[in-house]
């Protein structure tokens, strides 16, 4: 009976894996000064790091994390990334964005207009997300042909995706960095093709977004 149940669980797991691709993920976090009553009527802005030469934090990943927080607790107001960097142009461009909290404090002292604008937005937390999702090894082969009677493909392809992100939380009230959350996710996607290719995509970036979003929700929201 026990063996039967294990076999069922294995079959179910395999079916789920085959339907959406398999993803494994880990989340590490270290946070201090968590607001016990949530962030009240303050706002939080989530920004992506784009100063590295070989990768950019994807804007849609930053948006996904923001949406995850907003949908998890509607009382947490998240300012849109593009709206924020346009409002504070030219201070948050890839070339000029502050890398340390001290850089931001220097900017606030030097440019009172920036300080006034930040105060008017009631921004208490700034979250910087650094990382990207990359496509790893791929294998397999597929042949497609088109003729007068129609077309089709035959073959099998598989590839892996790796996502690595780190979120750093700056607290304006405490003038301190109050947390770091990192997540990594790896997944294998498949594409079998018998006439029609059927992509079975591993939701690697989505899993990483949920992982980092959940931890940020726990930090920012009083409901979690």
């Amino acid at each position, binding site marked *: 009976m026990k063996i039967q149940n294990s076999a069922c669980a294995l079959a179910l797991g395999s079916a789920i894996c085959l339907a959406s691709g398999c993803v494994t993920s880990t989340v590490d976090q270290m946070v201090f000064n968590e607001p016990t009553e949530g962030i009240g009527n303050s706002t939080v802005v989530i920004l992506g790091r784009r100063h590295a030469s070989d990768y*950019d934090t*994807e804007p849609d990943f930053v948006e996904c994390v923001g949406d995850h927080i907003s949908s998890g607790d509607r009382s947490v107001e998240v300012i849109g990334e593009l709206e924020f960097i*346009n*409002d*504070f*142009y*030219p*201070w948050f*461009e*890839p*070339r*000029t964005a502050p890398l340390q909290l001290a850089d931001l404090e220097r900017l606030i002292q*030097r*440019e*009172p*207009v*920036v300080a006034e*604008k930040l105060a008017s937005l009631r921004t208490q937390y700034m979250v910087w997300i650094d990382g990207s999702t990359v496509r790893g090894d791929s294998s397999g082969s597929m042949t497609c042909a088109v003729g007068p009677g129609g077309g089709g493909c035959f073959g099998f392809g598989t590839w892996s995706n790796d996502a690595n992100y780190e979120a750093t939380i700056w607290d304006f009230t405490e003038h301190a960095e109050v947390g770091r959350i990192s997540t990594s996710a790896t997944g294998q996607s498949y594409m079998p093709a018998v006439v029609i290719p059927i992509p079975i995509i591993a939701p690697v970036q989505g899993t990483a977004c949920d992982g980092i979003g959940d931890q940020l929700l726990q930090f920012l929201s009083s409901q979690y």
Partner: protein
Amino acid sequence: MSGLMTSVPDARALLRLAGALLLALLAGCGPAEVVVKGNFPAPTMEKLPLTIGVWYDPGFANHEFYDEAKSKKDSSWLVKSGEAQVQMWNTVLNGMFARVVPMVGQPGPGQMNPSVDAVLIPQIAELQYAIPAHTNVKVYEIWIRYHLQLVTTGGDPIADWTMPAYGKTPTAFLQTDQAAVNLAAVMALRDAGANFATSFARVPGVQTWLQQRLGNGREANL
């Protein structure tokens, strides 16, 4: 007879169709053209209490970059950035200075122009681009090197310097090469504006000029 009557319009229609197909094929052979379009935000900074003039050379205001295909596999590229350049520079300068005045002609002896504190003349010294077809990297990139001159209305030099700008965008699903090159160009223009707005007061010649105009205390805050 009736057969002939019906066949003549058919032949004309066929000729028209063939002509249209030929035109479409020829259009396909032309360069990939990008007219850079984007929105540029005004800088959030304290304005300098100065009136700056700006002169856009016709070569700058109508700037276009043409790169001929190196092989039959590649396509030629025509990137028209003049209009977006003027739009970006006007927005940035209006956010940095109390007043911005466009010049009537290139500053120089005998040239009548409105009275201003100084005139900025931006020029593009070099523009390069890279697309995934060239580099096998899934990123579209644009580099621009500006030659900037700050002169008096009489054309006497105050400062002369070069400034780099860079923009990149990754490949995206269902995004055309043209849309990606446009986005990379807009990013490069944003970078140019950001670089100029944050480094202008630190350019040696400009620093001295600002000290003369505004005094040491004000300049030290820039």
